[in-house]
C-alpha cells in the first residue's frame, strides 16, 4: 500500500494507510494528550482524552481510533479540540480523589501532568465522589482503586502481552471497577508492567511505595542481570542508593516491558552483603583492610600452588559476571598455569564442546511459523522471549513442546509430549526420525533403532515444510545429563526443517563467558572439579545453590586446603570454609558488559555507590594480577579491559566457527544409537527420575535475596516433591505425605504434592532453594521411602 498524505496543524505529513492519527502525530513529535492509548496495546478508545478536530467532521474524533485518510486535515490545538480535551479532563476528574500529595505516582503521573495542561481550577461537579475498595494483588503491586480512570491498559496488558487474564472490569457504569474480583495474588511473571502502563496512581509498586518521590531520583541506563535476554532497564537512585528499577525501551529486545524478576530483584541488592574483606587467621574469619586481604589471598594461593600444583586449582565463576570480570578471571588463572576454569555451573554434559551461536534477533522469533520447545520453561526462564513467542502464536505459528512438566505458557501448544527426563533423548529421536520419513531422507544409523510414536509425528508436523522455524532449548535441556545428544538431535532436526536453534543459556552473560574463554580448553570442567575435588578453589560469586550438585560442592569446599571467594553476598557455607572472602560489587555498582543470547554486547556503568568496602570485580582481579606480577594487568578502566578482550576474541573467531560446524556430527560419534547413552548413565526405562528445575526466583544470588520475589515464590509452596497422580498411585503415596527422597548418597524429606502437570515416572524437586540444597544432581535416578 502506498503512503498517503495528511495534514496535522497545517503541516503535511506522510502516513501509512493503516495508521491511526495518533501514530502519525507521535512520529512527527506532535503531542496529543492520551490515557488509554498505548503503542503496544490494542486500541480501546475509552478515555476520549485524545479528541482532535478533523476537517469536515462535525464532532471531534479520538486520534487513537481514527484511521488516516488521504488529504485529511487534523487540528490538535484548535479551540474546538482544546475545548473537547478540557471537557474530558473535567469529566475524568469528577470521581478522582485529587489526592496527589499522598499519592506515590505524584510527579510522574499522566493524569497530573495533563491536568496541568487541560484541567481547570473549578469543577461544575458538587455531588459526592465515588470510592472503590482496594485490591490485594500480592507483594508486588499496591492498589488505590479510587484513583483508577478505567483506561483498561492494565486489563489489556494481561490479555494481550502477558497472556494471563487476571484483571478485568467488573460491574458497569458508576459501579465499574478494575480488579481480580476474587482476591488473588497476580501470577503473571511480568505483572509489574501494569505499574508502568497505569497512567495514574491506581497501581503502584509495593516495595518502592512511599520510599522516594519521583523528582528526587536520578535515572541511569543499565542492563538486567538475570536472564540471557538482557532487558534494558533504568535504575533509579537517590543519594547513590538504588530505589527501584523500571524498563528502558529497546524495540529489538524488551520493547517497553521487563519481567518481575528484572524489576523487583533490586530489593536483594543490599540485603546480606559482605561489607569488608575477610581473612581466616587461626581458624577464625576476621575482617581486615583490602591491602592485607589481597596480599594474604595472593600469598595463600601462591603457597598452595607451589605445594599442590596448578592442576589442583579449580576456578569457578558465576555466569552472571561481567564480560570484563570473565576476561580478567581467566587471564589471571591461565597465567597461573590453571585451565580448570568454568562458568557452566549447572551443566553436566560437556561432551560436544558446545558454543552459543547468537544468530538471531528476538523480533525474528515473532515472525516464525513453527516453534519447538525442548526442556524449556520459557515463560519463567526468559519471560521476554515468551512475549515474542506469544506474538508468533497469535499470528498462527504452530508451537510444540517436549518437556518434563506441562508448564503454563502465554501461548497454546499445538502439540506436546510431556515425558520424564530419561525419555527426552528418545522422544527427540522419534521426532527426528519422523522428519526423515516425511522428507524421504534415508534414516541415519543412529536413528535406526528409534521408535516413532503418533505424538512424535504430530510434533514433527509442527515444523515440517514451514519456512521460518525455531527450536528453543531451555535449562531443562541444557542442564540435562544428555545435553550433548539433545543439542545434536536439535541440530539434526534443524537441518531438516531449516530451523534456527536457540540455546537459552543460564544467567545473563553465559555468551560473554564463552567469548572470554571461561571454559576449560584442556583442563577439567565444573562437573569433574566437583566430583574429583581439588585442593584449591577460587570462586567468583558461586554459592551452593548455583551448581548442579550442591552436595558435591559442599563436600569439595570442606576438603579443600585453600578457598578464596570473591563474593557479593554473605554465605554460611563460605564463611565456614573460605580462607579469604573479598567483597565484590554487583552489577549496579560496577561498570561492565553483558552479552545476550542474541549476541548483543551491552555495556553499562556503575550507578550506585559501593556498599561499604566492596569493589568492582575487574578492579579486584586487576590488583590480584599485579600482585602476582602477571603480564598485561595495567588496565585503568573497564573499557580498556573490554577492548583487549575484543582484540583477542576476534582472533579466535575463525577457529570457533569451524568448531561449531563440526558440532552436529561429533556428538553422535560416541554412541551410534540414542538408547545406548542411557546405559552409560545407569538409567533404565522404568526408573523414577528427578526434574530439578531452578525456580525463576532462585536462579541467582540477587533474586534469592529479594524479599518480595521470595514471598511470591513461597506462596506457591515450592518445597515439595511433585508427582503425577498416576505415579503417586503406583508408588502408593498420597498428597501431603512426608517422604524420604534418596539420590545417590544424599537424602532429604519433603511433603508430597500431587500435580498432573508432571510427567509420569518423574518427580519434580526444585533446586536452588535451601530445602533441597543437600540433594545431589538436578537430574537422575531417585528413590523414595515412605
Amino acid at each position, binding site marked *: 500500500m502506498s503512503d498517503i498524505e495528511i495534514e496535522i496543524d497545517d503541516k503535511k505529513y506522510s502516513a501509512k494507510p493503516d495508521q491511526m492519527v495518533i501514530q502519525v502525530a507521535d512520529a512527527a513529535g506532535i503531542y496529543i494528550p492520551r490515557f488509554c492509548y498505548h503503542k503496544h496495546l490494542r486500541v480501546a478508545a475509552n478515555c476520549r482524552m485524545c479528541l482532535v478536530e478533523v476537517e469536515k467532521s462535525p464532532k471531534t474524533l479520538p486520534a487513537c481510533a481514527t484511521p488516516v485518510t488521504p488529504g485529511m486535515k487534523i487540528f490538535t490545538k484548535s479551540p474546538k479540540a482544546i475545548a473537547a480535551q478540557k471537557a474530558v479532563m473535567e469529566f475524568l476528574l469528577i470521581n478522582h480523589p485529587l489526592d496527589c500529595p499522598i499519592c506515590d505516582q505524584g510527579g510522574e503521573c499522566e493524569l497530573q501532568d495533563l491536568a496541568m495542561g487541560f484541567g481547570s481550577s473549578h469543577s461544575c461537579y458538587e455531588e459526592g465522589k465515588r470510592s472503590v475498595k482496594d485490591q490485594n494483588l500480592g507483594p508486588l503491586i499496591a492498589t488505590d482503586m479510587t484513583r483508577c480512570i478505567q483506561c483498561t491498559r492494565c486489563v489489556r496488558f494481561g490479555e494481550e502481552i502477558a497472556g494471563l487474564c487476571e484483571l478485568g472490569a467488573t460491574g458497569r457504569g458508576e459501579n465499574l471497577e478494575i480488579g*481480580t474480583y476474587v482476591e488473588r495474588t497476580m501470577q503473571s511473571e511480568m505483572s509489574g508492567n501494569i505499574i508502568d502502563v497505569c497512567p495514574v496512581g491506581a497501581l503502584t509498586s509495593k516495595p518502592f511505595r512511599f520510599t522516594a518521590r519521583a523528582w528526587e531520583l536520578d535515572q541511569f541506563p543499565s542492563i538486567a542481570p538475570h536472564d540471557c535476554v538482557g532487558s534494558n532497564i533504568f535504575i533509579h537512585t537517590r543519594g547513590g542508593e538504588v530505589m527501584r528499577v523500571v524498563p528502558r525501551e529497546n524495540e529489538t529486545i524488551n520493547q517497553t516491558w521487563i519481567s518481575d524478576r528484572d524489576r523487583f530483584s533490586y530489593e536483594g541488592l543490599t540485603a546480606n552483603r559482605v561489607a569488608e574483606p575477610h581473612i581466616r587467621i587461626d581458624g577464625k574469619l576476621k575482617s581486615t583492610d583490602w591491602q592485607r586481604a589481597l596480599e594474604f589471598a595472593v600469598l595463600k594461593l601462591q603457597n598452595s600452588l607451589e605445594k599442590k600444583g596448578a592442576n589442583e586449582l579449580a576456578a569457578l565463576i558465576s555466569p552472571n559476571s561481567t564480560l570484563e570480570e570473565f576476561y580478567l578471571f581467566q587471564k589471571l588463572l591461565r597465567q597461573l598455569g590453571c585451565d580448570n576454569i568454568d562458568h557452566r555451573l549447572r551443566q553436566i554434559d560437556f561432551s560436544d564442546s558446545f558454543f552459543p551461536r547468537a544468530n538471531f534477533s528476538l523480533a525474528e522469533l515473532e515472525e516464525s511459523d513453527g516453534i519447538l520447545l525442548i526442556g524449556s520453561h520459557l515463560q519463567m526462564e526468559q519471560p521476554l522471549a515468551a512475549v515474542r513467542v506469544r506474538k508468533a502464536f497469535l499470528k498462527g505459528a504452530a508451537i510444540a513442546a517436549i518437556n518434563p512438566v506441562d508448564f503454563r505458557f502465554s501461548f497454546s501448544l499445538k502439540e506436546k509430549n510431556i515425558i520424564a527426563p530419561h525419555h527426552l533423548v528418545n522422544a527427540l529421536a522419534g521426532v527426528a526420525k519422523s522428519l526423515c520419513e516425511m522428507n524421504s531422507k534415508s534414516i541415519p544409523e543412529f536413528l535406526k533403532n528409534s521408535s516413532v510414536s503418533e505424538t512424535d509425528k504430530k510434533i514433527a508436523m509442527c515444523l515440517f515444510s514451514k519456512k521460518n522455524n525455531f527450536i528453543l532449548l531451555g535449562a531443562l535441556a541444557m542442564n540435562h545429563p544428555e545435553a550433548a545428544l539433545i543439542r545434536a538431535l536439535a541440530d539434526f532436526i534443524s537441518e531438516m526443517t531449516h530451523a534456527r536453534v536457540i540455546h537459552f543459556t543460564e544467567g545473563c552473560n553465559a555468551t560473554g563467558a564463552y567469548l572470554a574463554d571461561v571454559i576449560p580448553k584442556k583442563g577439567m570442567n565444573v562437573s569433574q572439579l566437583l566430583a574429583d575435588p581439588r585442593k584449591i578453589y577460587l570462586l567468583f560469586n558461586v554459592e551452593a545453590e548455583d551448581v548442579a550438585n550442591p552436595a558435591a560442592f559442599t563436600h569439595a569446599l570442606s576438603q579443600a586446603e585453600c578457598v578464596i571467594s570473591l563474593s557479593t553476598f554473605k554465605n554460611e557455607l563460605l564463611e565456614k570454609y573460605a580462607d579469604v572472602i573479598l567483597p565484590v560489587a554487583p552489577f549496579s555498582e560496577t561498570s561492565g558488559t553483558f552479552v545476550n543470547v542474541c549476541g548483543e554486547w551491552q555495556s553499562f556503568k556503575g550507578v550506585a555507590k559501593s556498599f561499604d568496602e566492596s569493589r568492582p570485580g575487574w578492579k579486584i582481579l586487576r590488583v590480584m594480577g599485579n600482585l602476582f606480577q602477571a603480564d598485561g594487568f595495567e588496565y585503568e578502566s573497564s573499557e580498556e579491559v573490554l577492548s583487549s578482550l575484543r582484540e583477542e576474541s576476534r582472533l579466535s573467531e575463525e577457529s570457533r566457527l569451524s568448531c561449531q560446524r563440526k558440532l552436529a556430527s561429533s556428538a553422535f560419534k560416541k554412541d551410534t544409537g540414542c538408547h545406548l547413552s542411557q546405559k552409560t548413565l545407569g538409567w533404565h526405562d522404568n526408573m523414577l527420575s528427578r526434574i530439578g528445575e531452578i525456580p525463576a526466583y532462585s536462579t541467582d544470588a540477587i533474586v534469592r535475596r529479594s524479599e518480595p520475589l521470595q514471598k511470591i515464590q513461597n506462596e506457591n509452596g515450592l518445597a515439595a516433591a511433585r508427582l503425577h497422580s498416576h505415579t503417586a498411585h503406583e508408588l502408593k503415596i498420597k498428597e501431603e505425605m512426608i517422604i524420604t527422597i534418596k539420590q545417590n548418597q544424599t537424602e532429604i524429606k519433603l511433603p508430597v504434592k500431587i500435580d498432573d502437570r508432571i510427567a509420569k515416572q518423574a518427580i519434580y524437586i526444585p533446586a536452588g532453594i535451601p530445602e533441597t540444597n543437600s540433594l545431589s544432581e538436578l537430574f537422575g535416578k531417585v528413590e523414595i521411602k515412605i
Partner: protein
Amino acid sequence: MNLSEHTRKKIDEWLLRYPTDQKRSAVLQALHYVQEENKGWLTEELMDAVAEYLQLPRIAVYEVATFYSMYYLAPVGKHVINVCTNISCMLSGSTEIVEHLKKRLKISTNETTADGKFTLKEVECLAACAAAPVFQMGKKYYEHLTPEKIDKILDELEKKNGE
C-alpha cells in the same frame, strides 16, 4: 466444582450455534442455565465452573456476571421484581412504584421477604419505555404500572402460590 450433567448438556446444545473456537459466545446462556439450577443465583464456584467448562479466564466470566443485572450474585427470593427506574419510567412515576412495592413487601430494595418469596431490585432501562413504568418479574414484563395494578399482580401470585 463441576457443572451438573443436565446443565452441561444444555450448554453443549447451545455451543453448537458457534464456531468451536468461540466458546466465549455461550457464556451468557451458560450462566442463565447455571443460575436457574441454583435457586436463581450464582456462586463464585459456579462461575469458576462455567469458566473452566468454556475454557475462559475466570475474570471473563466475572465480568459478564457482574455487568448484567439479570445475574444474581447473592441468594434471591422465588420471584425477583426488577423495577425500571431509568429516565422514562422515572418521569412516569417509577419512584411511586418502588415506594409502593417496598411498603407492600415490607422490604427495601435489594432485599428479600422473610418468607423467601420476593426480592425487590431497581434496574436500568428495560427497553419498554413506551409502556413506562415497567417492571420485570421472571421472564415477563408488567407494563403501565399503578399501585392498584401491582396489588392485583401480587395478590394473584400469592393466591397461586398458596394453592
